[in-house]
Structures are given as C-alpha cells and as structure tokens.
C-alpha cells in the first residue's frame, strides 16, 4: 500500500470518528498537498470534476435519445452500415472503423479506467464473495451523489475492505495462479466469437443500463442483461453463484455509472461476466465446486483485466455498440397494436 492510500485510509478513519462518513466523502481539498494524488490531478484536467467535465468518451455518449434510440447512437457512427451479430471477424472494415473511434476514447480515459479497475476489482470480489452487496450499493449511492470519483469509489472500497488490504499488486498473483489454466484464447473466443441473439440482447440491455435514468433501472437492466447473455448451460453450471455474480455486476455498474466519464464503460460488464463464466465453467468442468469466493476472485480478475487494458476495453465496447446497433434496428419493428392495448 502506498503512502497516498495510507493517508486516504487514515483520513477516512478520522472522518468516521468525527464528522461522519458522508462528510468525509465530500471533503473538498482533502487531497491537497498529496504528491501522489493522481486522482486529483486527473480531475483537474477535466475541470470541476466529472459531472461538469467533458467525457473523453463523448463519441459514444448518446444525447437525449430514448431506450433504443440512444443505443443506436444515430449520427455518431454515421457511415457505418448496420452490424451483424456474428462478431468481429464478420464486421471487417466497419468494425475496425468503430473500434478505431472507440479506441481513441478509451486511450484518453485509460489512466482513469486503470485506477477505477484497481479499485473496483477488490470491491467486486468482496461483494461477490460476501453478503454486503446491498449495503455497499447504498453507501455508494450516497457517496456518489456527494463527492468526486476519487473520494467516492476509493472511499467506499476502503470502508469495506480489511485493514491493510492493498488495491494493487497483492492477490493478483494468486488469482492468476488459480485461473492460469484458462488461456487467453478461451477468453478471446468470448470477445470475438459469434454472438447469439441472446448475447446481443444482453449487450443491448447493458447499453441501456449505461444510460438509464436511475441506478435502480440500470441495475435491473444489467442484471437481466447479464443473465440473458449467459447460455442456459452456463446458467445451469453456475446456478450456485448466479445471484452473487448478479450482485457483482450491479455494484460494478453502480460504480461505473457514478461519473459521466466512466458511465459508458457499463457496456463492458457483459464481457466481464462472460469471461468470468468461462473461467468458472472451466473450474466446474474440472470437477472443482464453484464457490462464491472463487466467483469473486474470478470476477475481480476479469474486471481488472478488461477495465485495466485499453485494448480489451475498446474491443468490449465496440462489440457492444455493434450488437446494440444491430439488435435495436431489428426489434424496432412495431408490434401489432391490438397486442398491447391496455
């Protein structure tokens, strides 16, 4: 744990004793004078903070459209014909075009995403492994309304992790060893293999969650989206940990939605969950019981890998954009009027 994190922790301890948790999260100027306050300097680049700042991902933040319109991103990817479900190898030029635009945005956001990945991973692990989800989510909600991302996300995480827990380095090696049998090729199949219509629908719901009006709506959409995206076989194999994975994706969504700059990356959640499912199914196939702890470690590892790697992140987002574009155009066809007469 570095000095900055130690200081943050002691700051929160003192706030908890003194002015209360919320006040601690609000505390403006708390990071003043910390030489390693990387978060602060990043926020300063973006003006007053994320809420007011311009998102480097504005290319795929859709303005004001509704549930499906917003997913289409009309006008923003003009010139790219409608995508198919079949995955990246079938997209050819249009995928490369979208990937290029997304990659540029991700590249700019990479330092922030790497920080968020380092913070979100242990929190996701804790939430998936234990029964704290609702409490963390609620405190996250309060914190997010109050402060900036540095305060809120690391504050939430630190208040629930055991003393001395490091956000970086430790534990990663352990995960890597546990899941080292999974080669990147298998994960690659998740990201470049053909999308079934259910997976595409799951991606659509994740995109809707990234733009939902309230956290509750976002959580419900991401929960259904990740559940739909998993195959029936996966759901059966992972039934014991499905609820935990759902909680993990809800908390991850909540953290990412907390600020405008990270909100579009909710689109990566189905990829994170699918990669987690691959790892866990492999363990199940090898005859090892899939426990919540194992699921927590696997999801934390995938969170760190996907959000922490600009290349993976860009691919996950562009895959999501392609899928949502294709699906939303297909399901936009009007249904028979009589069917919905109230």
């Amino acid at each position, binding site marked *: 744990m570095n000095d900055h994190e130690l200081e943050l922790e002691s700051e929160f301890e003192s706030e908890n004793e003194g002015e209360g948790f919320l006040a601690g999260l609000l505390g403006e100027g708390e990071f003043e004078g910390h030489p390693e306050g990387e978060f602060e300097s990043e926020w300063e680049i973006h003006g007053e903070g994320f809420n007011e700042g311009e998102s480097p991902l504005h290319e795929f933040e859709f303005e004001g459209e509704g549930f499906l319109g917003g997913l289409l991103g009309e006008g923003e990817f003009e010139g790219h014909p409608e995508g*198919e479900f079949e995955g990246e190898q079938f997209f050819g030029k249009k995928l490369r075009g979208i990937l290029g635009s997304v990659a540029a945005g991700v590249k700019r956001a990479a330092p922030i995403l790497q920080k968020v990945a380092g913070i979100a991973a242990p929190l996701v692990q804790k939430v998936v492994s234990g029964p704290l989800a*609702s409490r963390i989510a609620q405190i996250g909600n309060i914190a997010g309304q109050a402060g900036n991302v540095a305060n809120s996300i690391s504050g939430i995480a630190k208040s629930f992790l055991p003393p001395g827990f490091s956000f970086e380095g430790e534990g990663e090696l352990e995960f890597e060893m546990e899941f080292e049998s999974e080669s990147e090729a298998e994960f690659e199949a998740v990201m470049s293999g053909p999308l079934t219509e259910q997976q595409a629908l799951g991606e659509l719901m994740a995109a809707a969650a990234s733009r939902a009006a309230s956290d509750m709506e976002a959580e419900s959409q991401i929960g*259904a989206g990740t559940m739909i995206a998993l195959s029936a076989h996966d759901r059966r194999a992972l039934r014991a940990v499905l609820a935990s994975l759902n909680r993990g994706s809800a908390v991850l969504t909540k953290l990412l939605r907390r600020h405008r700059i990270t909100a579009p990356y909710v689109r990566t959640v189905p990829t994170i969950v699918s990669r987690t499912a691959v790892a866990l199914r492999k363990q199940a196939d090898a005859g090892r019981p899939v426990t919540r702890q194992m699921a927590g470690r696997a999801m934390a590892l995938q969170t760190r890998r996907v959000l922490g790697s600009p290349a993976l992140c860009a691919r996950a987002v562009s895959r999501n954009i392609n899928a949502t574009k294709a699906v939303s155009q297909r399901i936009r066809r009007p249904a028979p009027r009589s069917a919905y007469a109230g």
Partner: protein
Amino acid sequence: MSIGAFESELESEAMYEAEAFYENVATAARQGRSYRPLALLAMKAARAALSQGGTPDPEGEAEAEQMAAWESGGSYHETFNPRDAAPAAALMEHLGHAAAEAESNGESFAFLAPLLPLAAKALPLLAKSVVPKLLPKVAKIVTKVAPKLFKGLKGVAKTLRSNPAGKPLVRTLPRVMQRTVTDIARQAAAGQNVTPQRAVQTLAKQTAQVLGNPRMVVQCVRRAATVDRNFHQSMSRCGGRPKSAPCACSCR
C-alpha cells in the same frame, strides 16, 4: 432409481400438472365461466404482492434517502420516444417468457426486474389517454414507487413459481405490470397522489384481475408466445445467428 431419473420424473409430473391446469383454464375461458383454483391462486398472488410490497426494508433508511434523491428530480432525465414503446413492450413479453422458463427463482427475478422500467418506456403505447406532456411526471412517479412495486412483483412471481401449475402463468406478469403502470399513469393524470402503498395496492388489484380471469390468462399466455416468437424471428432475421451456432435462449 438414480437422482437424475427421479428429478426428470418429478419434472414431467409437474409439466403434466401444469398442462392439465392450463387445459382447465382454457375450457373455463371458452365457456365464459370462472375457475375456482385459478381464482384462489390469483388471490394468493395478490396477497403476496401486498405483503411483500408493504414490507419495510431492513435498510429502510438508505432506501428513504434514495427515494428522496429521486424525488428531488435533480438527475432525472427521462425522455419518451414513441418509437421505443413497441420494442419495449415486446421485450417485456420476451423477459416474461424467459422468467417463466427460468430454472430458479433468482434467475426468474433477474428477468422480471426490468419489467417496470420497460413498462415506463412503453407508456406512450399503453396509456394513450394520458397527455404526452404528463408522461415525464408519470415516469417520475413510477420511479419513485419502483422499489415497492418490484418487491410486490417478486412476491407474485414467487407465489406463482412455488406452484407447478402456476409456473407458466408467470408469462402474464408483463401484462400485469403494463396494466399497473397504465393505472398509475391514469391516477397521476387525474391529479391523485400516488404513494408507494397505493402503487402496491394497484399492483395487487391488477394481479387479481388478470390472474383471476381465465379468458385474460389464456389471452396473455397465447399473446406472450406469439410476441416472443415474433421477437425471436425479428432478432434472427438477416442471418443474425449463424445456422451452425446453437441458440443460447432457454425459452425456445
């Protein structure tokens, strides 16, 4: 007998029971009479909606704070696009279908969770009598009462799924939710104060009305199957899924 064989026998028995129940409901619908077991199930489900929706949350303080945040309306930015209404309604049917076919309650609840926001999206189609100008206000009210409504809906789903005969009736829940949201919209448009308790009562009333009426149940189940089939067709059109790739959908 192995555990697997025993489980599959139980499953087929439950399926037979559900089919027989549905046949009786369909017969009652054709003859235009009520069907007592269905009415009892409807009442039980409505009671579950009331009791679950009315239960205070153990972490009620945080919930109250969330509600206050929603009520303040600072970050609320719902927009309505009439073009989204029909797809949202179709998606509701698909999710209802998936929830009925889900193997566990947890999975089922995950599929049912987005019904409420989707019903709000489908408002321009569902509540045609409500002036479009009022729709954002209605959506805000729906968001405010959402936690209680979802708990109530979970209670209904749990009650239906606990009975093998009632499991297929989970397909009626999108319709129940659509009618509930429409009713709430009408109340709000009439200037009534829609509290979470009142919303839960509306849900219970609609649950009893839809599930207690054999004709409506048959209509809902048939329509859900049709809309879901159309949904799948529109999704897989244009060569969406390669023929060799297995479909991951559990509801087909």
